[in-house]
């Protein structure tokens, strides 16, 4: 007579629990090999849904994928009470550590985890969530090569493929780095972007200044300077001669017109 509970491997047949309570439909192997159709297979509950030692709303949600193989515990000889156990998804017949060391690729980390570290979970889609508990290195690596990692010094490294975006709820404030058109977009609707530094260096071929109105802070002082220059009457003895005043006024007027035009619309400065 077999002593219950017993542990078995089971294949996940369905995981779309209508009650959303983490139940999955399984075929327990080998005892349910002969069950003639999937409709007769049992929906079983996760083992860790016991409230023992926890409180409401605390726990793990980790529903196994369809066609994955998991460990189940059959609690009674009537086979009416079966739970599945939380664990890393089983990858048939092979242990995933070697694939981890081959695929783990975060250049910025000064210290690479060594066996048996890190603890990680690699899922069927190739996502690796790792945590080197001996050094405090953790992160997530995506099969595309993207990753987020924190090293033992607390440095955070992010690698993205096409886009990274941070935003608030209504997206009035956002920061977007987009590799499709090599664009960094900082937005603060109705607010301001403040960059504080001693020195600013802008290295570019073209500069675009967008927006109109008096709030375009760059134009206001320029316009004031030009106005002052154009209205200069040479009353002071140290002023230039009259012929000279006439010859200078024409290009300055042209520059003022250009600035006025730029204030009303986005313009490219050549």
């Amino acid at each position, binding site marked *: 007579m077999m002593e219950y509970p017993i542990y078995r491997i089971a294949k996940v047949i369905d995981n779309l629990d209508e009650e959303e309570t983490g139940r999955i439909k399984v075929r327990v192997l*080998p*005892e349910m090999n002969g*069950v*003639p159709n999937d409709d007769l297979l049992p929906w079983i509950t996760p083992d860790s*849904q016991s*409230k*023992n030692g926890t409180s409401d709303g605390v726990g793990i949600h980790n529903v196994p994928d369809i066609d994955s193989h998991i460990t189940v515990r059959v609690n009674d000889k*009537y086979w009416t009470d079966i739970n599945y156990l939380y664990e890393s998804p089983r990858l048939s017949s092979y242990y995933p550590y070697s694939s981890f060391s081959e695929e783990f690729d975060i250049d910025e980390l000064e210290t690479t985890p060594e066996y048996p570290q890190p603890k990680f979970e690699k899922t069927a889609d190739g996502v690796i969530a790792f945590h080197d508990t001996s050094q405090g290195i953790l992160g997530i690596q995506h099969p595309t090569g993207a990753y987020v990692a924190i090293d033992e010094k607390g440095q955070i490294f992010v690698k993205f493929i096409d886009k990274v975006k941070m935003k608030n709820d209504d997206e009035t404030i956002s920061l977007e780095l987009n590799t499709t058109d090599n664009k960094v977009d900082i937005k603060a609707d109705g607010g301001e972007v403040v960059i504080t530094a001693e020195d600013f260096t802008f290295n570019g071929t073209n500069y675009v200044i967008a927006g109109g109105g008096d709030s375009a802070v760059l134009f206001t002082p320029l316009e004031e300077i030009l106005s002052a220059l154009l209205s200069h009457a040479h009353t002071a003895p140290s002023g230039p001669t009259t012929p000279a005043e006439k010859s200078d006024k024409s290009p300055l007027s042209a520059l003022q017109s250009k600035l006025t035009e730029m204030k009303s619309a986005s313009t490219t400065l050549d």
Partner: protein
Amino acid sequence: MEFNDYVLDIVIGDSLVEIGTSEFSFSMSDSIFQMFPSFNLQINDVAGVLLETLAFTPGEKVNATFGRVGEEIQNRYISRHFETSEVFTPGTLNGLLNINNTHEFVYFQNRESYAYEGTPSDVVRELTSDYNFSDTRIDNSENQHIWYRPFYTQAEMIEKVLLENVYSNDSNDTPFFSFIDNDNVFHFESFFSLIERSSETELLLIPGDYAINERNRVIDFKPLSEDYNSLQKTLIYQYFERGVDSFELTESEKNIKEVYPGDYLVSQEELILTGTEYFSRSNIKEYEDNVLGQKLFNLRSGLLTNKILVTIPLNTNLVAGKTVDLVASKAFLENENSLSYSGKFLVERSQHSWSGESQNGFSQLLLSRKNKTVPDSYLIKSRLYNP
């Protein structure tokens, strides 16, 4: 062959055992607590001829027909064990042969993986449909759902799973029994069904000599009881719906303790604290029925506490599951019957024997019923089922 008023036919393999009626003895036995009836045969093989000619191989088919003429019962068996228990003449093949046989249904057992949807009764019908019983008596039951068969044989599936869970609204809250009787009838019936059936005959315990053709005369009368240990079952493990903050036993938990006669109590620490949502299935009808069935199954040992072993002249009509009216007279008071031992009894076990030595047939019956006269001082009276 016919001998006096008896029919005695034994076929081993394809060979009819043709020896003198004094050279063999046998018994056909069944029990309401046992799925497979048995047939034990003892042969004085004086010349060693039978040992030479009959194939006493485990698995050999053995057919037995036994009874008074016109009342004989017939059953099919499979040879389970054979040995020469005594050698008459050293250096020869002769000796006393013992052949133990079990009902043939055991030969049809398969370990299969399967799932059945229906009530336990539906599943039992399906499990027994391939075998040619002379009759089947299967009570209808509740708890309809999916029953898994994880490489259990048909008998294991019935005994370990279905019998322990079956519940019927028509059973008057009594447990089920499943067995094959000496007449090759398959039973899956509640105690209520068995005991409510009209009595097959009246058996008389009266002083004085008896004649072998007095078929309702009790020759031997031996009251007995089960060992108390058999009434004390194991711990009851039961899931209860309890919040994490509740450490008091609920009324339903206390009730569980009360309905299991003789069982050890479940201590508070052994209860499992669970979230209600994950064991809410205990509120589902079919699982409620399962729990009821399991409670009733545990009553079986304590159900039949009044037992008498009686021997009567051969009456093969009285097989396990039949009922009889016992009339036990008080020897010291003529025409007054014993209140303690008279009344309707269930045949719990029957053993129909042919004695080669006396050239007669006898039936030994274990008659049982619920104890009607439990004294107040009886320790588990309060927990006896419906005393």
